[in-house]
């Protein structure tokens, strides 16, 4: 009985990370129809900013992490304005191709100062041993991850339901033309969504880095897991992204333990291929209607 419990706990923690990655992907996709292939690198940049502030400027941990998240949010805002707004109404292939370029540009930027080395990212509670709760054993880092992800999810829920900005974002996602007709500043919404998505990506980055280690190529793995989570959730649904992420975390852990550890490496690819073949619109997606 203990093993499934342990697998569930760490699976949920990893899943919470994947859910955050998927959330960023889904938000951008819903608003602007862009598949963000550079999202993994946003996560990596966020983690590197946090690391630099912590190590070279000596900021306290929470302040450094908050600053990293803010910096990534601003980066997202600016990127949207200069790189995506001029081509906002172009074909989706064009937009996705720009994000592919973005992904490699960001990787190059990180590799210039940090090189090919692998860095260890400090934990928030380095001295606290694992927490034992009856038969359940959790590392503090996992607990922090689940806690932050939960808080962020609730915060986003409130943001989308009750704030003007959140409602405007939802309106823009549902009907771009309609939203601009009733006077919503859709440009600002685009930039705001990118800022939000990149900030969430940075949160995932600083949460993932202590366990995943820090290097310029770290983003690819999380991007694929995030894609798998988003695909499972239907790619257009915020709750879908969260459920999909948690499921991917659990599937990874259980299949890795009971089938083969190699499965954890390829699970993302297998899930993407399987879901798209069998059930292309995921758990929460709707079958699109074709209009001629």
């Amino acid at each position, binding site marked *: 009985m203990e093993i499934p419990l342990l697998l569930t706990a760490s699976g949920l923690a990893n899943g919470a990370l994947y859910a955050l990655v998927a959330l960023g992907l889904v938000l951008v*996709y819903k608003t602007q129809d862009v598949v963000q292939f550079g999202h993994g690198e946003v996560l990596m940049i966020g983690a590197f900013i946090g690391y630099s502030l912590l190590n070279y400027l000596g900021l306290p941990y929470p302040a450094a992490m908050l600053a990293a998240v803010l910096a990534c949010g601003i980066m997202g805002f600016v990127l949207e304005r200069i790189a995506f707004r001029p081509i906002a109404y*172009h074909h989706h*292939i064009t937009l996705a191709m*720009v994000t592919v*370029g973005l992904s490699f540009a960001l990787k190059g930027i990180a590799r210039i100062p940090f090189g090919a080395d692998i860095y260890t990212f400090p934990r928030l509670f380095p001295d606290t041993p694992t927490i034992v709760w009856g038969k359940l054993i959790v590392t503090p880092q996992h607990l922090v991850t689940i806690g932050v992800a939960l808080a962020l999810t609730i915060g986003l829920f409130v943001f989308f339901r009750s704030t003007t900005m959140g409602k405007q974002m939802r309106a823009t996602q549902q009907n771009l033309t309609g939203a601009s007709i009733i006077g919503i500043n859709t440009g600002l919404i685009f930039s705001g969504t990118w800022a939000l998505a990149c900030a969430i990506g940075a949160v995932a980055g600083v949460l993932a880095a202590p366990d995943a280690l820090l290097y310029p190529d770290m983003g690819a793995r999380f991007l694929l897991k995030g*894609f798998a989570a988003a695909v499972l959730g239907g790619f257009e649904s915020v709750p879908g992204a969260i459920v999909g992420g948690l499921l991917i975390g659990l599937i990874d852990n259980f299949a890795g333990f009971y089938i083969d550890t190699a499965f954890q490496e390829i699970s993302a690819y297998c899930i993407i291929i399987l879901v798209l073949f069998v059930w292309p619109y995921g758990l929460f997606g709707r079958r699109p209607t074709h209009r001629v």
Partner: protein
Amino acid sequence: MTRDLIHRWFAPVAIAILLLVPLTTNSYIQFIINQVIVYVIIAIGLNLLLGYAGQFAFAHAAMMGIGAYTAALLMHRLGVTFWIAVPAGGFAAAAIGSLGALPAMRMKRVYLALMTLAIAELIQWVLVHWKVVTLGTDGVKIPHEKFLWFTLASDYHKFYLILAAMAVLYVVARRLVESKFGRSLVAIRENEIVAQCNGISIAHTKAAVFAVSAFYAGIGGALFALVLGHIVPDGFGLFQLVVHFSIVVIGGLISMFGSVIGAVLLTTLPELLRGVRALQELIYGVLLMVFIIFMPGGIAGFAKQRGWLPDEILVRGWRALQARLKREGGS
């Protein structure tokens, strides 16, 4: 009139000049030129898929890997001659590529890209981990084969082989895009429903273009293996794909000549920044973004706008028709 003349004689003259190239180069420059030509082949394949058919697939580098590994393993393990191994690489890639087209038939937009990305990553994972067959990360060495006076040890000899392959594949691609098939591709890119209403079989056409594009990538990959002499799985990952994307986009989508320009520019560029991976990534990434945002037609598109390059015509005889209409309209 002079433009038509230039257009007609450009290819033969270019090939004649290319044939004389080895007289003027040293071994290192010859090696780079060989790579350029291989990338021309690969870029033409990607241009068919991405530019003409508008299918945003991520598996081109993986298909190149399939071609390279099929050819290299056949030669290394079974001692098959490259005359058979290289086409085998192309056909293996085409077979797997047309399988990859299965999802493309029912999937649109984001899903095709994701699916092919997953397939490409899976293929690379197999290349690394199926050590019994692929030798894993050690890579495969290509034996130096001799055929009469022809030897694979010489960059100059390889040059003529690759050049011949490129010339044939270039002409075939030109013919393809000018044929009914090429027009079906463009029709599908522009509007699938309209294409279907005009009696174009979406499934067959897509499967065909995926197979053809993968064939080009496979042949390119196999020749790439001959040029390098030693291949590793890491060479066929996402970075390779970004190189392909950059070549096609910067050279110019929907232009065969653009692929040539792109390959020449972007294969020689990293030689100038040799070894500095960070700079290569940064420059490829930024160039890709800048070109898509500010010059979406690439260099070829820009040249067409200025009238330096003729517009590519998808319907053969279009020029003659235009001329006749003009005459009749005038009279």
